[in-house]
């Protein structure tokens, strides 16, 4: 699915990713945890193609293609989806119109015609139910006036509509109460299948009670410093990140 090797990237002169390695196979769910400032969100932005970041070294192969050579929109069209930590508002553009445009672009890239209006609306209805998003939200402007929980649900709704092969969830659990968290996780779980992979970036273990990962990685200083099965998340919850930091320091 995606193979990240020795990835180094940063903003201006500041290096944030310092030789990041990760291999994700189809159908796998990888959780990336770590303290604030360890480079988790930078990783998400770099993979999605945000222009503010400079990649200085390393390779990323996505579906057998060189991801770093692709524009942000082509990465999306190839099936990479980023659920944003802070989804932006686009006043005056309805959710429906936005998704219709996005879906048509992605289908066009694959050589497919846009969906018929009837089929599109049917799809909207079906996917909305998945994240318990009210019908009226689909007709409102993209994220405008949405509560924090609605914005995150809307991200998962978009993901369901666009059917990516690799979804990166950037702190999707932040700012969610327990009910919203359950709804979001439930949506993600319904989208899990043998072909679709997930990279779940989170600060807290609690999301992983609902989205159970195959692997847990701990990120620190722009690198993965520890990997393990899902139980690693529990250990982190118990001991905090200081334990990792100390371990790193003594190793140096």
């Amino acid at each position, binding site marked *: 699915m995606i193979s990240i090797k020795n990835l180094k990237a940063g903003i201006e002169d500041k290096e944030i990713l310092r030789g990041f390695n990760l291999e994700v196979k189809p159908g796998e769910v990888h959780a990336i945890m770590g303290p604030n400032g360890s480079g988790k969100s930078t990783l998400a932005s770099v993979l*999605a193609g945000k222009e503010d970041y400079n990649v200085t070294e390393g390779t990323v192969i996505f579906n057998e293609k060189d991801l770093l050579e692709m524009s942000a*929109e082509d990465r*999306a069209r190839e099936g990479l989806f980023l659920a944003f930590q802070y989804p932006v508002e686009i006043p*005056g553009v309805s959710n429906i119109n*936005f998704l219709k445009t996005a879906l048509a*672009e*992605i289908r066009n890239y694959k050589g497919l015609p846009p969906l018929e209006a009837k089929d599109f609306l049917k799809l909207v209805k079906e996917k909305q139910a998945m994240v318990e998003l009210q019908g009226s939200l689909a007709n409102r402007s993209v994220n405008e006036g949405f509560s924090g929980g609605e914005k995150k649900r809307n991200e998962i709704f978009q993901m369901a509509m666009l059917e990516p092969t690799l979804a990166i969830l950037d702190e999707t659990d932040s700012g969610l109460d327990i009910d919203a968290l359950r709804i979001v996780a439930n949506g993600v779980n319904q989208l899990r299948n043998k072909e679709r992979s997930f990279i779940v970036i989170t600060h807290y273990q609690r999301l992983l009670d609902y989205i159970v990962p195959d692997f847990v990685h701990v990120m620190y200083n722009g690198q993965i410093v520890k990997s393990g099965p899902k139980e690693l998340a529990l250990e982190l919850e118990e001991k905090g990140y200081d334990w990792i930091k100390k371990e790193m320091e003594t190793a140096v």
Partner: protein
Amino acid sequence: MSDILEEVTSSEYKYGFTTDIEMDTAPMGLSEDIVRFISLKKNEPAWMLECRLKAYKKWLTMEEPRHWAHISYPKIDFQNIIYYAAPKAKKELASLDEVDPELLRTFEKLGISLEEQKRLTGVQSNIAVDAVIDSVSVKTTFKETLAEKGIIFCSFSEAVQEHPELIKKYMGSVVPHTDNFYAALNAAVFTDGSFCYIPKGVRCPMELSTYFRINASGTGQFERTLIVADEGSYVSYLEGCTAPMRDENQLHAAVVEIIAHKNAEVKYSTVQNWYPGDKEGKGGIFNFVTKRGICLEDNAKISWTQVETGSAVTWKYPSVILKGNNSVGEFYSVAVTNNHQQADTGTKMIHLGNNTRSTIISKGISAGFSNNSYRGLVRVSKGAKNARNFSQCDSLLMGDKCGAHTFPYIEIKDKSAIVEHEATTSKIGEDQLFYCKQRGIDTEKAIALIVNGYCKEVFNQLPMEFAVEAQKLLAVSLEGSVG
């Protein structure tokens, strides 16, 4: 990021072409003789000539307003302008077939083929077109259909000949020749325009439309539009403008007057894309327009909707005088400036009657090196009870070399008034663009999507066909080389 915006926003004007038709022009410059020449050319009655001469004499005493608006441009030499240019060999035309085919092709390039309009009569596009090329109305379509309802829709010159009582009664009643420098100039030298009268209780069954186009080199266009909606009538009027590419600046000073009687409603929509000059700011139209409507009696309503993407310099404030009780004035505007364009535009809402209401929604978009100003006045006179106004002025900046300014003036002389004003300034964010791209939408489409979303409240006010055209115009104005 700024590179992309620069590339996207530096597009060339797509409507630059010149029609080669024999012109019948006045000598260059302005004098009493030229005013007489125009009047004579148009075979006008003596009273009309008198009106012109009065205005000309007033104009001589007035000073060009140069200081208060947030625009700057070289001094205009009014003796270096041709004030009359008409397509030659004019005769009465019985049908469209007799119109110079060259002219028809011009319209086709503009996308408003008269033939198509005619073919579509009563099917889908119910628009009657009064086409004005360089000051003279060439052909008015649908006139007969409208006449059955008693609606008069013709060129201004024709109205002077055939409906002198209406012209005498209403011309200059909203914008007198003493109003301002350009209104005086227009009253002296105007060459043509449109006249529209909707009789009592008649709902005009189709959109009425005028297409203005400046063609001859070095000519100014001074058209005059007069719309009278009698008691209980309704009309939706569309005005569209384009001008071919020219190196020297061309002057345009129009006057539009609207009179709405008791229970009448007039909706006036403009899409203007006159030549804005090239990327370096050379050439382009100077657009100094006075547009004003009056809700003369109770329960009248006047609504201005404008989408302005053209002209090098725009100076324009469509206004409503709310004289009748319970009358309503509305102003919906999208003004786009790019490259070196300058716009100082807005509205005036003058509340005189009781329970009058006005709404102002203004959306400015600035790109390139342009300057875009909103200037608006809300005035509530003493004794005008329970007046209400809501104003919303938003500015959108693209790139960091352009400017957006808001100058709201509020004069309230009656305590019962409720006036609200909201203003925002935003930039097309890198974050918004990235969000769109991450969903598979490229930069060009993303900008169109975001800008159209931003203008939605105004586009919603436009008739369907115009809304589509306006969206396309925005795309042409702001996009271009990318993709």
